[in-house]
């Protein structure tokens, strides 16, 4: 278990017990976030580096806030281009930063496996904040935390992940996490955006959105990127919206309301229509709040924190 090894590289490497512990710990931190003074001294003296090789405003801010709420010292390293292109290898960059005596590294990188690579080469605790189309474990954890606001348990819940599965780290982390917690997971999207042999992970695949919507409790709608259209993976955003977009008309046909999530940022009118995104069944903003709590929990537990509920 990588989590117990001092890293959070992906939910593939974390067992159900650890996921439970993170979710419980996050619930406690969520309470802290509701207080007038939203700060605890838990990570005082610890230094966290946010190493972002890819633009990501919201994930970085969420981590930064989590670090500040825990009283850690945090520094940001952002580079939209790969360090390789500057002539310095990722390893050099990371070793340099580690030489400044830091405790934890939060890394966002285009290349799948970049956090695993750092974990093998550095002594610091590594937290994956998204590596290419591999994993984004804190996103999946916050998604599960959000589900638990509406549903008593994830066990037995039917969850659909909708959209570009092939290029999504959110999808893979959600698949691993949800399956470990006992959910039934269905993937839905254009056949060109569903990677081969993904059924082997234990999920179902369906290409028909209305069939999926009528048979699930929760949907997690992924962002569709225009560059996929340019890559020839589907004909147009309009066609995508018509065949896979989550609209009020589609939801109104259902026998009962379903829970709607989206990792953001949303493309209104593409994968989800505005009236749905802003509806009472949408938990999109709760996800954002829970994100800070989840990241606090992960930082706290990796720094050696005990189960604070115990």
């Amino acid at each position, binding site marked *: 278990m990588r989590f117990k090894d001092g890293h959070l590289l992906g939910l593939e490497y974390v067992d159900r017990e650890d996921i439970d512990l993170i979710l419980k710990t996050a619930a406690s931190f969520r309470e802290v976030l509701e207080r007038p003074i939203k700060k605890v001294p838990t990570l005082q003296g610890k230094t966290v580096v946010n190493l972002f090789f890819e633009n990501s405003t919201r994930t970085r801010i969420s981590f930064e806030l989590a670090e500040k709420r825990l009283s850690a010292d945090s520094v940001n390293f952002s580079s939209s281009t790969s360090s390789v292109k500057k002539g310095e*290898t990722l390893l050099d960059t990371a070793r340099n930063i580690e030489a400044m005596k830091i405790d934890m590294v939060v890394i966002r*990188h285009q*290349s*799948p496996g970049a956090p695993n*690579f750092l974990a093998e080469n550095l002594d610091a605790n590594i937290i994956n904040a998204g590596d290419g*189309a591999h994993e984004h474990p804190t996103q999946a954890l916050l998604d599960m935390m959000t589900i638990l606001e509406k549903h008593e348990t994830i066990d037995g819940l039917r969850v659909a992940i909708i959209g570009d599965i092939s290029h999504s*780290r959110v999808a893979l982390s959600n698949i691993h996490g949800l399956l470990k917690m006992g959910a039934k997971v269905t993937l839905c999207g254009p056949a060109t955006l569903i990677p081969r042999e993904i059924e082997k992970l234990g999920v179902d695949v369906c290409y028909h959105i209305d069939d999926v919507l009528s048979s699930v409790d929760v949907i997690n709608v992924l962002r569709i990127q225009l560059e996929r259209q340019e890559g020839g993976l589907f004909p147009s955003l309009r066609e995508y919206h018509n065949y896979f977009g989550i609209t009020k008309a589609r939801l109104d046909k259902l026998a009962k309301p379903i829970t709607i999530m989206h990792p953001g940022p949303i493309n209104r009118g593409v994968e989800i229509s505005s009236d749905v995104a802003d509806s009472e069944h949408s938990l999109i903003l709760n996800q954002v709040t829970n994100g800070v709590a989840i990241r606090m929990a992960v930082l706290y537990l990796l720094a050696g924190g005990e189960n604070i509920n115990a």
Partner: protein
Amino acid sequence: MLKKSRMTSGKFENIPKNMLFKNIHVVDNSQKLNGRKSVVLKNGKIEDILENPPDSFNGEIWEEEGLVLMPGLFDMHVHFREPGREDEETLETGSFTAANGGFTGVACMPNTEPAIDTQEVVSFICEETKEYLVDVYPVAAITKKREGKELAPIAEMVEAGAIAISDDGSPVMNAEIMRRALEYSKMFNIPILGHEEDSNLSKNRHMHEGYYSTKLGIQGIPSLSEEIMVARDIMLTEFTGGRFHVCHISSKGSVELVRQAKAKGLNVTCEVTPHHFTLTDEAVESYDTNTKMNPPLRSEEDRLGIIEGLKDGTIDVIATDHAPHSIEEKEAEYIYAPFGITGLETAVGLIISQLLNKKVLGLKDIYDRCVKMPREILNIEVPKIKSGELANLTLFNLKVNWIYKENFSFSKSQNTPFKEHTLSGKGVCVINNGKIFKSPSIQ
């Protein structure tokens, strides 16, 4: 051209005047040899092949359990990076690496900088290597700069010593160019060594497409990208009557296509690398960039298809695709690391561990795949273990179990996934061109 490095610590010694390989397993299918014999060398020539060793012998004697003597192994697919990337390998360090791995001959691929696409570069390689123990044969580019657009000066390069043509590293995407290359090369009876990849299906992709690419979030190269080109080039071979050899075959489907082409009587052959018959895409789970090569490690089903192809003779040759890369380039994120791994020094160990010991191939088959067929495909005379012949020999030990470590290697690069792997079987010494090279012993 840059001045080449002389940093190697290897040594080709002159062959001792008298040598005796005493009571060891000798294999040469052309001489119907496959059993215990004693072989006497005198002045670099094979003097005698004896049922029983002489009672007394004045000279160097090799006698050890597990030793096998064969005509020198030949690797028809290596990258020696000279000219252009002498920091990664040179003709000289590459040759020591080959000798250390048990090879007495290699064909080096043209994706150098500049490419081997002119008579000058072909002559440079032939000239530089003429005194070496290891025979180094240049493979010339099919097209200028390996761009797949215009034919390179094939006749001139063949005249200078090129033994085949290939744009290895890149496919010839234009079927018209491939057709003309097959037609033109017929005049010299040389094969085209095809790098089979439809780059539209493989561009910006980094490993085999399948369960593991999905799980690892790495965009995958489908087996199809190879199979489509193998099918196309087999059809072009049939149409033109040319000679075509599939480099580093990696998928079960490609093996089946070659099997069908052979059944039709077409002049089609193929090679496989040791890593493709040993590893699968599961190895990429480590995100070790030394599992990244092109074609990529494929599925277990593909690997089993390759084993089947080796057994039934569809796969003619084992070749390493020895592709040295600097540590700076390989010590990178998976999607930024270059394709390719070294292979010369682990090949014999993998052939013995994975094929001989698992009863996929016998020693006679290993002779065919590593001694005879690569040379026959390239129109190079196959050395024999026969009295009166110049000695061109590989001695390897089947019974040595060893762990591959960097300090064993003579290569300038160490990009191998087999670091710290336990291998059975190891090259012991090679003899060729009046010289001998002894591999350092492993203890």
